[in-house]
């Protein structure tokens, strides 16, 4: 998938919201990601220039935290909960099945740009485990056989 073009107005609005304060780098990157669904390369340059933080430091923050993605994401984001409670109830099998169905590796995006598959450590809804979250919608008590029907709801 190709990189998106960033808009200077959008970027400066985000930076102004935080008074261009270096201390808010993480919050700024979170807002950028909320806007573009990932962190475009151009956006990192922009943030680095405007906040006067070395690009290396912006990059290190953007790659350290799991919540950030440097690659464009698909139309739908699938989060598979890999927390302990989900793990002991078979989350690994669910993840593998989703990988097979979407022909995607974990932390990858399907070729048609439809799904991005990511694992998360725990969303704190353990009673529902094993749990899959697609675009913020929770699907609990998953089984291998429920994977295909679930993904068919999205296009």
């Amino acid at each position, binding site marked *: 998938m190709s990189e998106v073009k960033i808009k200077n107005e959008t970027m400066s609005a985000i930076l102004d919201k935080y008074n261009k304060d*270096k*201390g*808010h*780098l*993480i*919050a700024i*990157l*979170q807002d950028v990601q909320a806007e573009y669904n990932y962190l475009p390369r151009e956006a990192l340059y922009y943030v680095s220039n405007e906040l006067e933080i070395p690009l290396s*430091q912006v990059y*290190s*923050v953007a790659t*350290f*935290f*799991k*919540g*950030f993605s440097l690659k464009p994401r698909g139309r739908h984001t699938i989060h598979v909960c*890999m*927390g*302990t*409670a989900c*793990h*002991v*109830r*078979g989350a690994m*099998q669910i993840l*593998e*099945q989703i990988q*097979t*169905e979407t022909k995607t590796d974990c932390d990858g995006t399907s070729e048609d740009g439809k799904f991005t598959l990511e694992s*998360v*450590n*725990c*969303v*704190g*809804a*353990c*009673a*529902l*485990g094993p749990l899959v979250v697609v675009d*913020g919608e*929770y699907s*609990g008590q998953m*089984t*291998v*056989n429920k994977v*295909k029907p679930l993904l068919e709801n999205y296009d």
Partner: protein
Amino acid sequence: MNDKNSKLTSIKELELKRAQIIAERPDVATISVCCGTGCQAFGGQKIAKAFVDSIASHGLQESVAVKTTGCHGFCERGLLVVIRPQNILYQHVELEDVEEIMNETILKGNVIERLLYITSDGTTRITAEEDVPFYKKQQRLVFGANGYIDPTEIDDYIAIGGYSALAKAFSSMEPEQVIDEIDRAGLRGRGGGGFPTAKKWKSTREAHGEVKYVICNCDEGDPGAFMDRSLMEGNPHSIIEGMIIGAYAAAANSGIVYIRNEYPLAVKNTEIAIRQAQKYGLLGDDILGSGFNFNIVISRGGGAFVCGESTALMASIEGKVGEPRAKYVHTSEKGLYDRPTVLNNVETWANVPLIINRGASWYSSIGTEHSKGTKIFSLVGKINHTGLVEVPMGITLREIIYEIGGGIPDNKKFKAVLTGGPSGGCIPESLLDLPVDFDELTRVGSMMGSGAMIVLDENNCVVDIARYFLKFLEEESCGKCVPCREGLERMRQILDDISEGKGTESHLGILEEMSESIKVGSLCGLGQTAPNPVMTTLKYFREEYLAHIVDKKCPAGVCKSLVTYNIVDENCTACRICVKNCPAGAIEFIAKKTPVVLHQEMCTKCGACMDVCKFDAVEIR
């Protein structure tokens, strides 16, 4: 109400406000709908709206109210609805049940049997919330208010006595007395370390510097723990009140709530709560006319387990990579931006108003000698009553798992309970009568941690669990210390080998040796405790490791390389359900009344056939 006259400028005004709120609330029936993250997934908001609509269509707005609350705790039975004042608990409520509840319970006063809790032996249905075994043995001091208040309504919190502890502290206690009260109560940090809270406050108070901070740690990274999320979502004002009192005691004027970005509802409810508290003048300048200034901002975490560690968390607030630093100088003296900083966990803060209101001697009468008060645990995994339980310190694991938790589902055999998350350990059945407190759990090689309790049954493999935690920590290690960064990876590779049947007996010695080195050679808590799951499983379940190594078998049937799925011919009715459901197409239908054939070379061992088979005709060997 405009901002000017909504501001409370004295304690007297707060009390008048409280009286006014209570007086204006008609004594009506309340339908309390759980809208915590778990129950929202069962349609919490939709169901609450359906109740509101139905009340309107019946013209009952004057006599029945709907309350959308935070998590009630009994997540397994979501969606939960409680009808007050009778306290009727309805479980697994669906949208279709709303009209029946309105017609039968609200209008006629009848109890709907089918929605009640039923005991595990299937004989008795229980009506009242407090009589359900899950709730009966709990002591819900911190968590109890969740079911009664709408977290987005500050008036709800004030109506149940909220901010009265703050008023008490301001009107009758010097900061030193507040610290002394917390000290005598014996409050220890609920985030895992168990460090005495009063000590932290005192050293920050005594530290030099004009600017001081208090931080609330809601970076609940421990997988399987969700009590902080539920408190933050369900009762944010109790945490804000605790923080104001703590700031008053430690002489700090700025507060930060650090919340995981994976908890969107907690972020939202905290934002609302802070705004409301500011509007009432409970945050800001000259709080309640005391002359004390304090404000709170939210900082969202970027998703790194290590940021639960105090120095890493502070680095992350400063916009830096979340790497811990050595604590030769405590953060209470040099923390955020090198200023004196008090950092406590969500649950710790929520305990503070309770102690100030009811006194240290009352609080310290609960619990064990060195662990006072209650602790909230998230009881998850192979357990009948998944949910959040608040119990006095010193209760036994057996009571929590069997009496409150309702035991293991499907009559399976209990194997172990994991406490303390990735830093904790595996506690076997022989230690189930252990009283749960900070020191006892540490003594057996585990720890309290933030309070996750993951129950394992006979179908869980301890090698797999140890490997799971190592993989988790390997990914979450920040990479600063070599023993943690490289050592955990090497240990995980050894466990990979063992789970694939390539292990040797000498591996166990290497694992033990490496565990010791990583423990002493790492800077922060993550590395120091990382070997715990391996060490405890080796200590209590060595046989199971040896089964993988010597017999090349996984007794629990989990480690894929060591198991095969097989069709039990005599049970197979050739119903073809497994054939239809096998995602790999590995099962072949031969003929009617002839057992199906599973082609091992195509099998991905996903377990789908076993899940769907109704005749026990699939087995793991």
